[in-house]
C-alpha cells in the first residue's frame, strides 16, 4: 500500500491567464505560461523562485529550463514531459508531478499548459503539403485528417453497438453551455445554447454537430503541487491527490485505426487502477470534469469510468442529470473545453480543485471527491481524483 501517491501530495495553488479566442492572445505563448505560473504561485502565497519542478504534456513548447531561468528559480530538480496523447496527458502530468513530490525528487512542482495557436498554428486543420508518407498516407488522402474526423468513427461504432441516440451527445453540450453562463471567465459566457440551436447547427462530421466540438483557444493554466505535510501552510483549502495515473489498452496505438477495442475512450484499463489507488467508488464522486474534445468522447469516458451502463446512455445523458448543483453527476461545471476554454484539459483539473475548495461558479454542495478524465480516444489517456482533507 505504500506504492501510491494517495494523500501524499496536494494542489495548493491554481492560476490561469485570461482566456482568448484562438489567435487573439495579446501575449506570446511563453509569456502566457509565465503569467499562469505567477498567478498560481500568488494563489499559493509562494515565491516563484521556490518552485523546483515543472511538468507538462502534449509537447508543450515552454521548456522548463527556460521557464526556470525566466522565473529566477533557485534550484531546478524536476523537468518532465508526458509523452503522447495530446489532452490525454493532462492528468498524467499531474501524476508525474505528484510522483516526484511523493518520492522526494522535488518539493514544489508546477504543472502547466500554454497555448497560442495564433502564434504556432491550429489543431483543427489538415496538413497542407504536396505528398504524405507513413501512417498519414493511409488516411489523409481520403480526407481523414482533423481530430474530429479521427474520432467520429469510434463514436459512430459505439452508438451503433449500444443504440445511443444523438440527444445523449446533445445533453453533454447543453450542460457545458449551461455552466458557462455562470462563469464570467468562459469564452461562451453570455452565449447560451438550447435544444433548437443545437439541432439546427451544422454538421462538422456526423455524429458531431458544431456544438459537439471543443473550442480552440489561446491562454495558459498552471497548478502548484507540494507534499501533504506542507499543505496546511498555504492560504487555500488543499486539494489532495487521491489518485492520478495514465495508460491505454492493448495496442491502443495500432496505426490506421487498427486498435482491437476501437469503440472506446481508451479508459478501460486505467479506471480500475484509478479507483483502487483512490480507494473510492464511482458512486463516491461528487463532481466530474470530463475532457471534451468531442461530446462522444465524454459519453464513452463516463461509461468507462462506470458512471453509466452502456445500454442506459439514452436515459442517463439528459441535461438535468449533468448540471450543478442538483444533477445526479454535475459534469464540466466550468463550461469545460466546449464552452469555457480549450486549455487542453488542464482547466478541467483546475475546476476540480475549485470544486474541492468550494470556489466554483457552479459549486456543487458538499464536494469531497472530484474526478477528472483527461483526453478520451487518444493514447495514453489519464485520470485524476482529488479529495478534501476529510477523504484522507
Amino acid at each position, binding site marked *: 500500500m505504500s506504492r501510491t501517491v494517495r494523500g501524499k501530495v496536494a494542489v495548493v495553488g491554481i492560476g490561469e491567464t485570461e482566456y482568448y479566442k484562438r489567435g487573439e492572445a495579446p501575449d506570446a505563448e511563453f509569456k502566457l505560461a509565465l503569467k499562469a505560473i505567477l498567478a498560481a504561485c500568488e494563489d499559493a502565497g509562494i515565491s516563484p523562485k521556490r518552485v523546483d519542478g515543472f511538468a507538462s504534456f502534449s509537447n508543450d513548447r515552454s521548456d522548463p529550463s527556460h521557464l526556470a531561468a525566466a522565473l529566477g528559480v533557485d534550484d531546478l530538480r524536476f523537468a518532465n514531459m508526458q509523452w503522447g496523447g495530446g489532452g490525454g496527458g493532462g492528468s498524467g502530468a499531474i501524476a508525474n508531478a505528484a510522483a516526484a513530490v511523493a518520492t522526494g525528487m522535488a518539493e514544489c512542482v508546477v504543472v502547466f499548459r500554454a497555448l497560442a495557436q495564433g502564434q504556432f498554428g491550429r489543431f*483543427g*486543420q*489538415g*496538413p*497542407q*503539403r*504536396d*505528398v*504524405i*508518407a*507513413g*501512417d*498519414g*498516407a*493511409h*488516411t*489523409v*488522402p*481520403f*480526407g*481523414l*485528417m*482533423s481530430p*474530429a*474526423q479521427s474520432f*467520429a*468513427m*469510434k463514436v*459512430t*461504432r459505439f452508438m*451503433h453497438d449500444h443504440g445511443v441516440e444523438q440527444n445523449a451527445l446533445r445533453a453533454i453540450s447543453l450542460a457545458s453551455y449551461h455552466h458557462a453562463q455562470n462563469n464570467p471567465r468562459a469564452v461562451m459566457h453570455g452565449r447560451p445554447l438550447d435544444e433548437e440551436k443545437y439541432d439546427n447547427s*451544422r*454538421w*462538422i*462530421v*456526423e455524429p458531431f454537430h458544431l456544438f459537439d466540438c471543443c473550442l480552440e483557444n489561446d491562454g495558459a493554466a498552471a497548478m502548484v503541487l507540494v507534499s501533504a505535510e506542507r499543505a496546511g501552510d498555504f492560504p487555500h483549502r488543499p486539494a489532495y491527490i487521491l489518485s492520478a495515473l495514465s495508460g491505454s489498452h492493448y*495496442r491502443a496505438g*495500432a*496505426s*490506421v*485505426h*487498427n486498435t482491437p477495442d*476501437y*469503440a472506446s475512450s481508451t479508459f478501460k484499463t486505467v479506471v480500475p487502477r484509478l479507483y483502487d489507488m483512490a480507494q473510492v467508488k464511482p458512486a463516491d464522486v461528487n463532481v466530474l470534469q470530463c475532457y471534451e474534445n468531442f461530446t462522444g468522447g465524454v459519453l464513452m469516458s463516463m461509461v468507462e469510468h462506470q458512471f453509466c451502463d452502456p445500454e442506459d446512455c439514452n436515459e442517463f445523458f439528459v441535461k438535468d442529470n449533468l448540471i450543478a448543483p442538483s444533477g445526479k453527476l454535475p459534469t464540466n461545471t466550468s463550461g469545460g473545453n466546449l464552452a469555457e476554454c480549450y486549455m487542453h484539459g488542464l482547466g478541467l483539473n483546475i475546476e476540480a480543485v475549485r470544486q474541492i475548495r468550494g470556489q466554483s461558479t457552479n459549486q456543487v454542495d458538499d464536494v469531497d471527491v472530484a474526478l477528472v478524465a483527461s483526453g478520451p480516444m487518444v493514447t495514453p489517456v489519464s485520470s485524476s481524483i482529488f479529495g478534501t482533507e476529510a477523504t484522507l
Partner: protein
Amino acid sequence: MSYLNPGLPKPVPAPDGLDSPFWEAASRDVLMLQRCGTCNEFQWGPEWICHRCHSEDVGFEEVRPVGNVYSYERVWHPVHPALKDQGPYIIVLVELPECSNVRLVGNLMGDPEQSVEIGAPVQAFFEHHRDAEPPFTLVQWEKV
C-alpha cells in the same frame, strides 16, 4: 475518376520502405497486406516485426479485396482548402475478415448522402491517379 477533388496531399511510400509493396500492388489493382511468415496472422498498418510472435519474417501477401464496413463517417466541414467546394463525403473503416480482421480506411464510392450500414459488405475499387506527380493509387471501397 476521383472521389475527392484533387489537391490533397498525395500518398508516397514511406522512405524506410515499410509500406512500399502495398502501393506498388495497388497500382496493379492488387491488394497486398502484411502477413507474418511465422504465425501466419495479418497486421495493419505495417510494422517491422510481428506484434503477436515478434518474428522479423513479415512480408506482403495478395489478399481478396473484400470486407465489411466496421464504421464510417460523413464529413461536412472541410479542413483542407482542396475540399472547400467538395460538399459532404463518406469515409469508411473496412474490416477484412479473411485477413485477421485488419482494417483499412477509404472512401465509399457513390452518392455522398447515401445511407451506410455497419456490417455491409464492400469490395475494393482501385482509384488510379496516373497523371499525378508522383502517380499513385488509392484503395477505395464500393458496396457489393
